């Protein structure tokens, strides 16, 4: 009789080995499946960084758009440096707080602070009967010193107070506008009465150009170089010997009357406008300040993105 009890301890070993092999296979398949599923899930989540980029850029654009509109609005409502600065600073803080609560819902913290403001100054004199002296009645005075650009300068002069002469280039008592360039070269414009309003321009090189007489009054465009819109002369902007920054100066300002208006870059008084002896608010020439640009520091922080920069906001200019 066969003895079947000898190998009874080994029964099933082969099946166990097979089962272990299958288990390993199944584990590998599970790992592969898990990796594949994770990969798919990760693909679905990769939009996160793109969303954060979009949110940061959207915040940046919103600031530029909102800030541009804000500055344009402030320029319409205010004309003093201090008021413009304080109003803009307050408005940026308000905008920043409103945006912060909006962005917090998306899990991002934001902040915007005003860093600096760039102005332009419009100097306006509209009393036709008043001479071109400053508020303190000084006849020789600096209209604007060290300005990087003069964007427009128009004057209407009448012959009432003009010096009656045929030659002013000896720097005598005639009214003259002097524009001193960076290297000390000076461009001059004389206005006098030589049978009517007459204009002589002396270039930095010393060469002279005379226009007129034009009648009892003349309209000068100093930056375009025209007398009554037709005769053209070389402006200080075109004069090779005269380069920015410019200092504009009136001499013998009590010998000319009429109106003038010019716009220069920057803030042209050290303190407030009222503290400066040259400018006033009524008859005397006045300054109308405008903001041309503002530097704002913005910060955007989300779980995965930190974005900080200083952006220049220019009114009426957005790149969409």
């Amino acid at each position, binding site marked *: 009789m*066969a003895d079947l009890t000898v190998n009874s301890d080994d029964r099933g070993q082969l099946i166990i080995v*097979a089962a272990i*092999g299958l288990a390993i*296979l199944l584990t590998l398949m599970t790992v592969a499946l898990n990796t594949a599923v994770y990969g798919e899930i990760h693909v679905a989540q990769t939009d996160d960084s793109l969303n954060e980029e979009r949110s940061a*850029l959207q915040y*940046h654009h919103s600031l530029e758009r909102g800030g541009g509109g804000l500055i344009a609005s402030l320029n319409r409502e205010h004309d003093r440096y201090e008021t413009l600065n304080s109003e803009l600073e307050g408005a940026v803080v308000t905008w920043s707080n409103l945006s912060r609560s909006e962005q917090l819902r998306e899990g991002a913290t934001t902040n915007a602070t005003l860093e600096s403001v760039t102005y332009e100054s419009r100097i306006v004199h509209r009393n036709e009967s008043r001479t071109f002296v400053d508020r303190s009645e000084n006849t020789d005075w600096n209209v604007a010193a060290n300005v990087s650009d003069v964007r427009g300068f128009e004057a209407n002069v009448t012959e009432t107070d003009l010096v009656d002469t045929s030659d002013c280039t000896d720097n005598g008592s005639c009214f003259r506008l002097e524009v001193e360039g960076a290297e000390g070269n000076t461009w001059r414009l004389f206005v006098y009465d030589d049978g009517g309003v007459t204009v002589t321009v002396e270039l930095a090189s010393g060469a002279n150009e005379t226009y007129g007489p034009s009648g009892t009054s003349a309209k000068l465009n100093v930056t375009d170089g025209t007398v009554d819109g037709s005769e053209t002369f070389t402006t200080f902007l075109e004069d090779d010997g005269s380069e920015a920054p410019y200092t504009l100066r009136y001499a013998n300002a009590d010998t000319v009357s009429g109106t003038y208006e010019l716009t220069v870059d920057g803030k042209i008084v050290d303190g407030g406008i009222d503290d400066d002896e040259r400018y006033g608010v009524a008859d005397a020439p006045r300054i109308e300040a405008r903001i041309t640009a503002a530097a704002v520091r913005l910060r955007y922080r989300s779980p995965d993105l930190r974005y900080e*920069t200083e952006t220049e906001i220019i009114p009426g200019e957005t790149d969409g």
Partner: protein
Amino acid sequence: MRQMDDRAVSTSVSYVLVLGIVALLSSGLVVGFAPVVTDQQQETVRSTMAVFGNDIAGSVDSVDRLVTKAGANGTVELSTRLPDRVGGSPYEIELINRTAENGYPGYHYDIELRSADPETTVRVRVRSRYPLESESNVLDGGTLQIEVVHEESRSKLVIRNV
């Protein structure tokens, strides 16, 4: 009595046959399916690393655009969260500069992801306006941070492990 010696022989034969068939089927199953499973695992790891590579490339693109907008005074730091392991095995990332080989404008790089087990390599191409550098020659898998570094003459993007 002679017939008594043959008793239960058929049971033994049957038992041996069953064991043989089971052994044959089991080994066939294991030998047949093991390469399939291994191939599948390798393919899965490869495609997952391709996803990671494209994720890194997308983040580089994002930082590149943000730096362009932020300008020379801007700070940009973007984290890309990737797993430490893929398919149960660690992997490494290397940045290969291909700018010199490419005539198109900008900087061109291959992001190479390598896994040891299974041994798989994936390359993803990325183009940027700013030069891209990695803090070490080879980066480990896991969370990466890409940030802009402003130098005197230029700005560059630096990618590092965090």
